[in-house]
């Protein structure tokens, strides 16, 4: 059913192998380091939450006061071993100054582990409970085969977001993503509590996650459907936000170090390390990750540079595998960013979308709508979005981000979203079996475009395998953007692991990965 392109399957396998080599090499690097946000994540997963009087999140207060290379678990474990306090109690005491971490002497490894591991198991159990709850919901309500309708809310105010999300869900949306306020990804902490003052989006906080999760569960129960919730890991707090998502039962999370490097100028070492742990969490919590390849062709040409998308997708797949994410959770990204004035652009787009589909046949691909070539012509905008929906359906994509007629103007109004849902539902129903009905001409424009992209991606992967991924990012291969290995934000949070460094969750997650 999904073989319409006469792809050179052997070349696909060879390309995959190259990507694997690239990822493996990177993994060796990753294994040697931890970061401040990873340590804060460990705190969070051990149950630490809240802020101190100055409003600084307690996980930050802790990690700011330790020798990071030893790991937060070593400190917490030592104190627990000595005092029997709960992690949250410890954090509060650190917060109000009654414990000074700098004065703590660490106990023996074995004692640390004994103190921490049961608590870590508890944290992991909370995540598993959420995962099971999701599964129960999906069993009760049933799930959808066809494209999942994904819309964003972005009012800046979580309460207003809930109103928007509720309306969208009742109209038919399957996934609600809460866009973050501009700038959050550059913040080296996660804000706390319910927030009402974001710009172009709403802060990702655990309380906001909780409020939205609750609203969507309510709407879903009314509707007899499970409404998925999505937020964003990428940024300076990848694993922390992944942990918050795990704790509040998010279902989908954008998670891509390359996005942070290229589009937020985050230091590449920092974020590639963070990505690994955050993906482990996502994997364990049953979250579908979404990668950000769509962003490349928002900036560079969608026909010329199509192969860079495939290249990145293949690497992202390997990074996901290494973090224990199964295929069914790999929401690999791509986008409809075809210049509308290109002759046969629609055919090229069909080729690319089908290519992603055939290279990742079991992954729930995330397909992004036109943004770059959207203009203030809202009528034409509806049609650009329609063409995108049609490609979605012909190539049978799983997660369909709905395009907004006002894309070039503002974050969506409630009515914009409703129009988008109506359009998508019309097309998906009116074309229900189209993917089965329509074939592509052998050796036609579509086939040739797809096979050319594959070939070019293979070549690029070979090159990256030789020079390494960091070097590749330094010379500017993706989206035409160069980033120096020591540039960008967050490098100061990267720390070589000490000899006795210990992350209690790695083992738990790895066990799950290996199906133990």
């Amino acid at each position, binding site marked *: 059913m999904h073989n319409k392109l006469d792809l050179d399957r052997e070349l696909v396998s060879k390309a995959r192998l190259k990507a694997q080599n690239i990822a493996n090499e990177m993994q060796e690097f990753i294994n040697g380091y931890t970061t401040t946000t990873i340590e804060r994540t460990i705190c969070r997963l051990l149950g630490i939450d809240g802020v101190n009087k100055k409003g600084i999140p307690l996980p930050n207060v802790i990690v700011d006061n330790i020798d990071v290379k030893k790991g937060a678990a070593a400190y917490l474990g030592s104190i627990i071993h000595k005092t029997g306090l709960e992690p949250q109690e410890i954090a509060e005491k650190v917060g109000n100054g009654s414990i000074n971490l700098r004065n703590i002497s660490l106990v023996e490894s074995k004692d640390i582990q004994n103190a921490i591991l049961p608590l870590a198991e508890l944290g992991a159990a909370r995540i598993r409970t959420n995962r099971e709850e999701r599964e129960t919901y999906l069993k009760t309500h049933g799930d959808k085969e066809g494209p999942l309708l994904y819309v964003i*809310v972005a*009012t800046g105010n979580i*309460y207003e977001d809930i*109103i*928007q999300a509720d309306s969208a869900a009742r109209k038919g949306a399957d996934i609600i993503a809460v866009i973050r306020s501009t700038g959050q990804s550059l913040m080296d902490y996660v804000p706390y509590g319910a927030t009402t003052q974001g710009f172009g989006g709403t802060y990702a906080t655990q309380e906001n996650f909780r409020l939205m999760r609750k609203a969507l569960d309510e709407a879903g129960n009314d509707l007899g459907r499970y409404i998925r919730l999505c937020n964003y890991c990428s940024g300076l707090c990848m694993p922390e936000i992944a942990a918050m998502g795990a704790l509040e039962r998010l279902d989908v999370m954008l998670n891509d170090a390359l996005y942070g490097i290229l589009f937020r100028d985050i230091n590449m070492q920092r974020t590639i390390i963070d990505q690994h742990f955050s993906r482990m969490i996502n994997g364990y919590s049953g979250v579908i990750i979404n990668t950000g390849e769509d962003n490349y062709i928002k900036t560079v040409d969608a026909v010329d540079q199509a192969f860079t998308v495939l290249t990145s997708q293949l690497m992202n797949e390997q990074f996901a595998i290494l973090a224990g994410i199964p295929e069914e959770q790999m929401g690999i990204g791509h986008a409809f960013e075809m210049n509308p004035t290109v002759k046969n652009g629609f055919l090229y787009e069909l080729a690319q979308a089908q290519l992603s589909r055939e290279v990742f046949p079991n992954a729930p691909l995330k397909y992004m709508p036109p943004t770059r070539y959207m203009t*203030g*012509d809202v009528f034409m905008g509806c049609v650009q979005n329609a063409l995108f929906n049609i490609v979605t359906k012909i190539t049978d994509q799983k997660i369909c981000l709905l395009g907004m007629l006002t894309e*070039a103007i503002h974050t969506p109004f409630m009515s914009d979203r409703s129009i988008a849902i109506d359009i998508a539902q019309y097309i998906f129903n009116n074309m229900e079996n189209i993917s089965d009905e329509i074939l592509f001409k052998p050796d036609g424009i579509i086939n040739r475009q797809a096979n050319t992209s594959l070939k070019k991606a293979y070549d690029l992967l070979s090159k990256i395998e030789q020079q390494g991924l960091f070097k590749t990012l330094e010379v500017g291969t993706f989206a035409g953007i160069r980033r120096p290995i020591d540039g960008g934000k967050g490098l100061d949070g990267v720390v070589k692991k000490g000899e006795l460094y210990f992350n209690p969750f790695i083992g738990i997650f790895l066990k799950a990965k290996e199906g133990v």
Partner: protein
Amino acid sequence: MGEHLKKMKNIGYKDKYDPTKIKPYGDTINDGKIQVSFTLPMQNTPKATIAAKQLVLKMGLREPNIVLQKSLESEFTFFVVYGHLIHNVDITKIREEDSQLFKAMSMDEINEFISQNFNRKIVVVGATTGTDSHTMGIDAIMSMKGFHGHHGLERYEMLEAHNLGSQVLNEDFVRKSIDLKADVLLVSQTVTQKRIHVQNLTNLVELLEAEGIRDKVILICGGARITKELAKELGYDAGFGQNTVAEDVATFFIKEIRNRQKK
């Protein structure tokens, strides 16, 4: 549903939901967001931009954002504008009777009502008049098959319904109605360009008055662009627009006949 707006009063918004001052809504209560499109008869120059802004300011838009300004390849320019509106409406002042959801009876109830109150069949004569040949509207109301699963008036036991079809001249319509002793006249008008429906509908009232039977019939018009207000203005007893079904009309006219009898 029905809970969010109430909540909005309590969650610490700067602007609160206030039913005496309802404003359009984009994504934040009282943001007043609105979209407008129009063409101006002038070439696509900076002057046109200024003219467009002046115009939407007069409409009450503030911070107008001209998101599209497109030449129509002639001396005309098309605009799409977003902005926020200064106007608001007090929905607590909207009269209850105007806003009440009109509750139609079912076919059975209507038949029952007629049997009990009038002891005879009610005669309904309908047509699309003038040069208008759109029959689907009047058919939706009158034909057996009806519309959206609602049977038409011909199906009602206690009605004697005559559908004269389309392109019926007002003169013929009046004559036929007299012949058939109509209690109710139904007129459909779809073509409204250059107000031809107003001409047609007005002319019919004049003819009925000339024949001295205007007061003896319930006179109803309908069509996609017919509103209650327009109908009243033109001297009709009622007017029905989009998505009307037979029950709506029948409920109206049987009650109206009954009311008149009482007087």
